[in-house]
């Protein structure tokens, strides 16, 4: 007959200080682990959530991002009339030629960051459905106006509605603020493509082209046609694939975090084991009595195992609560975490500890509970009733 769970539960209260201390250790590891996981998944989510599966990114063959691609005017004029490209109400192709430049913007705290500035035509809003102007209005071409994403807003000097933004060689008027479902578009500034090209003295008018296809069935043929066209040496890919690839650099961070979590977990497990060994030791007589009453070894083993798991479960609950609170607090204090030194553009991400991050921390806490209880529970189960009673 197994011992009731309430036995394990009550034992946790026998030495409240010690239980609290051990649960705190697990809680701290949970906070550290879920904070890190939250950071990386927020970064990935921001990048991966960018784009539309019906959109294609057309770039120069060999370039790996917008910033290093070039596209000539002839190529744009030819490509926009390819079959399979969707059209708007006035029968214009949903093809958005874009120029990406990464100028410096001065941050409020005196530093500077490379910010992705996208030169666009008005059609861009129709192609990028995620992007919606939520305040102010869309920029008017040829009047040195820009609209800024929500992540950019307030981070840089002049990045506010109605302000003058110093960028590149000139000064631009901020006339609108846009939202993009939390995707990395929100870390961008949009300007008129021709004006931006003039400002950056670009030889080619565009860096790439974004296309909306009519239906999913048109995606593959259109990609093949663009890839195979010998005139322009361009290649196309799904917009979602493009951003998934951009997020790959975050994967190496996962390896790091998992490594840290495992080391911290083993450490916390050692600490919890200590507490459980002490519990077994101080309850030797009790265990002897239980065995004498007829409880089996398996019952003793599971009772202590349950106690250890309950202890780390308690740690998880406390830790998870703290992690969510701390990430919210950091979000307010840091106002979004900036990322991306090597890609030359800054992604401003909102740190959020989500369910999947907490799941990761839960698995860690549960494993700590199981393994830290194993040794002590085994020792308790092996106690010989007579000796245990005599020792007491």
């Amino acid at each position, binding site marked *: 007959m197994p011992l009731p769970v309430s036995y394990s539960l009550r034992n946790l209260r026998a030495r409240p200080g010690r239980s609290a201390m051990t649960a705190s250790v697990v809680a701290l590891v949970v906070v550290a682990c879920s904070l890190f996981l939250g950071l990386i998944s927020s970064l990935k989510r921001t990048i991966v959530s960018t784009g539309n599966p019906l959109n294609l990114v057309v770039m120069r063959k060999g370039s790996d991002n917008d910033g*290093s691609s070039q596209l000539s005017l002839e190529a744009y004029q030819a490509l926009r009339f390819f079959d399979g490209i969707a059209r708007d109400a006035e029968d214009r192709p949903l093809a958005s030629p874009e120029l990406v430049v990464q100028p410096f913007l001065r941050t409020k705290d005196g530093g500077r960051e490379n910010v992705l500035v996208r030169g666009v035509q008005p059609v861009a809003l129709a192609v990028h459905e995620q992007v919606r102007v939520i305040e102010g209005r869309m920029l008017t071409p040829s009047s040195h106006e820009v609209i800024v994403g929500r992540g950019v807003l307030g981070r840089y000097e002049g990045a506010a509605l109605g302000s003058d933004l110093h960028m590149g060689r000139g000064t631009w008027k901020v006339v609108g603020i846009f939202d993009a479902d939390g995707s990395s578009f929100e870390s961008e500034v949009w300007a008129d493509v021709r004006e931006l090209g003039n400002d950056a003295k670009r030889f080619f008018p565009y860096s790439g082209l974004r296309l909306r296809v009519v239906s999913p069935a048109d995606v593959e043929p259109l990609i093949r046609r663009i890839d195979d066209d010998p005139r322009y040496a361009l290649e196309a890919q799904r917009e979602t694939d493009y951003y998934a690839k951009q997020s790959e650099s975050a994967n190496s961070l996962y390896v790091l975090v998992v490594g840290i979590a495992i080391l911290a977990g*083993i450490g916390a497990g050692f600490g919890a084991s200590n507490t459980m060994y002490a519990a077994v030791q101080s309850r030797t007589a009790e265990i002897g009595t239980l065995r004498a009453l007829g409880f089996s070894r398996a019952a003793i083993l599971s009772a202590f195992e349950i106690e250890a798991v309950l202890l780390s479960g308690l740690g998880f609950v406390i830790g998870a609560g703290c992690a969510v609170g701390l990430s919210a607090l950091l979000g307010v204090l840091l106002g979004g975490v900036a990322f991306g030194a090597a890609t*030359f553009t800054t992604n401003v991400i909102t740190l959020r500890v989500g369910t999947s991050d907490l799941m990761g921390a839960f698995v860690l806490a549960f494993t700590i509970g199981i393994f830290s209880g194993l040794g002590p529970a085994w020792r308790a189960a092996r106690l010989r009733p007579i000796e245990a009673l005599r020792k007491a």
Partner: protein
Amino acid sequence: MKYLGLIWANLGRNKLRSALTGGAIMLAVILVCVLLTMPAGLNAILEHVSNNTRISVHAKGGLVYQMPYSFTRKVRQVDGVAAAMAQTWFGGAFEEAGRVTFPNFAVEPEQVGAVYPDYPIAAEQLADFQRYRDGALAGRQVMRKYGWKIGDRITLRSTAWPVNLDLRIVGEIASDRYPSVWMSREYLDQALKAAGRPGLGTVGIIWVRAADPNRVNSIMRQIDEMSRNSEYETACETEKSFISNFFGSLQGFVTIILIVTGLVALCIVFIAANTASMAVRERAGELAVLKAIGFGRRVIFATLLAEAVALSVVAGGAGVLASVGLTGALRVFAGWSDALGPLGGFIVTAPVIVQGVFLSLFVGMLAGVVPSWGAARKPVVQTLHEVF
């Protein structure tokens, strides 16, 4: 000194507990050290790699705004400039990665020695870099990551230019802090012309070395003055300022790393304190007897505290040593990570070691002080009552 035996015997009394606590402390110190190498890597680059006589000349608008290559010559003529080297981002991807996994630039080989006299490059390798048009210099991190040797031939597929370059590794920048690969500017220029492009008429950054550190500011002013109101206005800054600005966007991430480090450190305090309090509780009778036969409170307090400190310092010291080994392994496997940039150097520096050792000392003190104090202060009669 005469109490050392007692402290040692007490630590050995519950070997399993001492081992578990020591293990936990060791793991946590390893973590703290590894995490601290990340911000320390950034600082080390600022302090050691950057040089106060080197100046970066780049377009005011941003690094992607190019300057005409001819401007390099004008910069060389500025009074007080010892040497200047044009540097252009090549953005080469190696092998199957398909994306840039280490920074690589086209530079002027004949200027490298004069602009970077502080870089550890062997003289004959530098001479080879100048002699062979397809020569390349690679940082030690990259050499190790891809198992390159001097004399190897590699192909870099540029993501920034419509060319691929076949390069021969002729030398190594012999330090773990330099993750870059350098190739000849002229080679890229000719490759571009062969591909039907106008050639490399522009430059992204001109690195200048001032002959005299006191004249750095006046040189920067003169260069900016030269370009004023032209189509390529420049913004000069010292190498240190350039690097700190370039990696400024990592600050938020660094903050989070430091928070996590703090949490892990707090963890060890709890674990060690728990152990210390268990030890004191179990030994209550014994301590009372010690006091009853005349040992002073101070001795009791000191031996108990010393026990906690000894455990955490020994374990922490082992942790610091282990972290040196672990980061060595990390460097070999991870190399330069494009997501971490300079944070991913994983080099345990002297300050990191000092911090690790101090942390373990501090943990031992903090964990031991409350239980030891309590045990030392408790009246003998009361303790003996409780026990017997």
